[in-house]
């Protein structure tokens, strides 16, 4: 059984159709990247999964149970990290997790154990200050800790890394990878490198519709690999290769692309580079990447 199933869901705000007939399935125990531009409808979809927004049409099921707007019972399976997590500033991280444990009626001994374990996981175990003094990254980490407290079957993270610096982003992504052993992770983002790095499966949302969903290999199989990219040692080498091969296209100061070259043609190009002693750093076969598809889809 799929952990999450979205069937033909539509949502309109005023005269703007935000979600159009969206369907999606998330299998258990994977990291599912929900990709889309800002305003594509990612947050709206996540809020509908949590029963925080009503749907106009369609059905959402979590663990086989139907999601309802308002008092939504399937939330007992979910942990949620909002895009801008806000907590009670007058509490410290430990007090907040104790409060979360109490409202979910967790046994005190278990609550203490899990709080300690999660605070260690997110690196807040020695933090004694109140949440009011926390940075954005610290709030994000506390957000993951509170979302994982009740061992949810589905962890929903809305743009968990978008406002963080590179160090903060890496920390959050590492935590999500660790969490995968315990739960299914659905995370939305517009940062393609984050999705590429940690997710097993991807759904690309554009114009309120899912334009691609599947695993990363499916994505690469969509179009055959063709062409090569060469990174050269210096600008003289770039000039030399452009002089030698008229089909080469300059990408930037040190990179050149052979857009339509087959593997056999590439062997000949490499041989000519060796013969002419043109220094190069890297030769890479082009692949149909998430970025290529994203750009293709959004029409850039």
């Amino acid at each position, binding site marked *: 059984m799929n952990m999450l199933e979205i069937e033909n869901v539509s949502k309109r705000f005023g005269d703007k159709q935000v979600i159009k007939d969206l369907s999606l399935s998330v299998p258990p125990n994977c990291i599912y990247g929900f990709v889309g531009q800002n305003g594509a409808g990612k947050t709206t979809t996540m809020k509908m999964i949590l029963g*925080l*927004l009503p749907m106009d049409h369609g059905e959402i099921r979590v663990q086989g149970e139907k999601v309802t707007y308002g*008092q939504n019972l399937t939330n*007992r399976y*979910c942990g*949620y990290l*909002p895009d801008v*997590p806000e907590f009670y500033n*007058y509490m410290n991280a430990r007090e907040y997790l104790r409060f979360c444990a*109490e409202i979910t009626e967790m046994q005190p001994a278990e609550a203490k154990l899990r709080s300690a374990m999660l605070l260690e996981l997110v690196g807040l175990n020695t933090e004694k200050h109140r949440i009011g003094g926390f940075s954005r990254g610290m709030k994000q980490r506390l957000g993951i800790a509170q979302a994982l407290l009740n061992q949810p079957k589905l962890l929903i993270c809305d743009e968990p890394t978008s406002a963080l610096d590179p160090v903060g982003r890496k920390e959050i992504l590492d935590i999500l990878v660790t969490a995968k052993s315990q739960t299914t992770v659905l995370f939305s983002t517009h940062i393609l490198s984050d999705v590429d790095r940690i997710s097993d499966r991807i759904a690309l949302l554009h114009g309120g519709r899912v334009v691609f969903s599947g695993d990363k290999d499916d994505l690469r199989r969509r179009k055959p690999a063709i062409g090569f990219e060469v990174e050269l040692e210096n600008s003289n080498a770039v000039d030399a290769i452009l002089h030698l091969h008229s089909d080469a296209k300059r990408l930037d100061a040190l990179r050149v692309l052979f857009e339509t070259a087959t593997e056999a043609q590439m062997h000949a190009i490499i041989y000519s580079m060796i013969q002419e002693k043109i220094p190069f750093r890297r030769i890479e076969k082009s692949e149909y990447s998430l970025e290529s598809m994203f750009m293709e889809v959004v029409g850039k």
Partner: protein
Amino acid sequence: MKSLIAFSKKEATEWWRSGRFAILMVVFTLFGIMNPAFAKLTPWLMDSMSESLENSGIILGEIRVDAFTSWEQFYKNIPIAMIVFVLMISGLFATEFQKGTLIPVLTKGLARWKVYVAKTFGILLVWTVGYWTCFGITYVYNDIYWDNSVVAHPIAAAGLVYLFGLWLTAMVPLFSSFLNNAISVAMGTGSIVIASYALGIFPNIKSYVPTYLLSAQALLVRAGDPEDYLLVIVVTSILVVVSFVLGWVIFDRRRL
């Protein structure tokens, strides 16, 4: 039930650590002290002003103050305390909506009605403690300096004003259930009070509208009996319950 207690504990912590409870208790205590203090200081104030008043041709007779003077101050001051109270509590729900602090709590499966009940109960409890503290301080000082027996029905009269305050504070959760900011909630509550005053102008319905409860001071001088207020007590009690239930239903369906 455990989760309701847990959220109520969080509310108590918030009242305490935000300083809101302390500020309100200081306000109610100060008003409680000011009533007898003003009565006690009135002869001295008049005496010090008598010379300049005499020059203006106004001759002051003997100024007599008693417990009634102090109770008069109580009924003049308590509406100001009510306004302060409403302003202080109007952001109790709105701040949570604006910051999004309820989202992690509700997505953990906490029933919305528990949030509504815990917050409303907190407001009513603080109103009860604050109001009767103010009343108690005035009552004790009046007994020490003068004699409370000169006024009739002091507790019944205070009880009627307390009920008016309950009605006022029950409207804050109601307006909070569909409005998004503290100013709108305070203005919504204020406009209902103004509407009640406006309806009170018509003699036929005057004694049914909640603002009629504020005339309870008349009981002190035996200008009426507590039984005269029975209808407005029933109407106001119904309005308190209706506000509470309506707010509950709307809050259950509100978009977060």
